[in-house]
């Protein structure tokens, strides 16, 4: 039990800092996981702390809405690296993100989708979904109750507007 727990914990805590740096596109970002009780970690809690780019260490509840979303995605992707599900389904995860962070998160998902996992997102923001390979458009039809109809558009047939995108300079 101790071994399995530590094996998982070590894997995720080694990966989380590098994933957070990649999501924030900034080497000064830091993320770390630390057990409250290092001898028997499964008996107590596990702390999670993120230092946003350009800021100092402070408690997690001091983060703003957008900063919490980025911290959450780093943890989500770090856990996935230990136990890789074949795909993600993410429903409006961009709601609290400003356009800069939308660009960073979408670029990260775009990179990972090539090599690591399939990603299905639901989004209202063009800045987010214009980086995908395919759009699944849902449009409502009136009836006694709403009827959902579906259109699919393969974006890979069009030239990619971001193909010349330079790596964001952190």
């Amino acid at each position: 039990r101790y071994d399995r727990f530590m094996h998982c914990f070590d894997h995720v805590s080694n990966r989380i800092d590098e994933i957070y740096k990649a999501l924030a596109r900034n080497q000064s970002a830091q993320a770390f996981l630390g057990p409250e009780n290092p001898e028997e970690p499964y008996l107590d809690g596990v702390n999670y702390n993120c230092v946003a780019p350009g800021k100092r260490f402070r408690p997690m509840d001091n983060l703003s809405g957008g900063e919490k979303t980025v911290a959450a995605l780093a943890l989500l992707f770090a856990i996935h690296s230990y136990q890789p599900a074949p795909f993600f389904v993410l429903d409006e995860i961009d709601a609290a993100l400003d356009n800069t962070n939308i660009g960073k998160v979408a670029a990260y998902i775009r990179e990972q989708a090539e090599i690591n996992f399939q990603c299905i997102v639901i989004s209202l923001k063009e800045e987010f979904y214009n980086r995908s390979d395919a759009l699944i458009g849902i449009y409502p039809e009136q009836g006694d109750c709403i009827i959902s109809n579906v259109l699919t558009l393969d974006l890979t047939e069009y030239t990619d507007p971001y193909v010349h995108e330079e790596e964001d300079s952190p």
Partner: protein
Amino acid sequence: GHLKYIEVDNFKSYRGKQKIGPFKKFSAIIGPNGSGKSNLMDAISFVLGEKTSNLRVKRLSDLIHGAPIGQPAASRASVSAIYTDAETKKETVFTRIISGSSSDHKINGKGVSSQDYNAELEKIGVLVKSKNFLVFQGTVESIAMKNAKERTAMFEEIS
């Protein structure tokens, strides 16, 4: 591997049979408020074994098209997920059917028990119980804001 298609049949706001896809490496579901985007995520979550309370309904039968306004379009509804293996390119069809107050499971058209169904899903890396690949609307921030004990419990479930 990856998810190729989803087929819904009278599931929530999707009337009759509809084949949705193909899903690419990075696909985006878009559309106006109330059009049925989250219902499509509910369909994917349902076919992978997600429990009713996370599908925004109280009973399985509320998932049938028209049920919330008292006019269910049919007595059954179903969702199928067509999954393609990365190496062998072999397709597997996972199907979950609502009939009455319980649900039946099929793999490639053949009825199986829910244990066998979940075992097959685990083989491809889909562990709905630890749910580390589904993020429902409005819940992303809470992943980072769990307290220390909840986080330990999360690690216990995954390891």
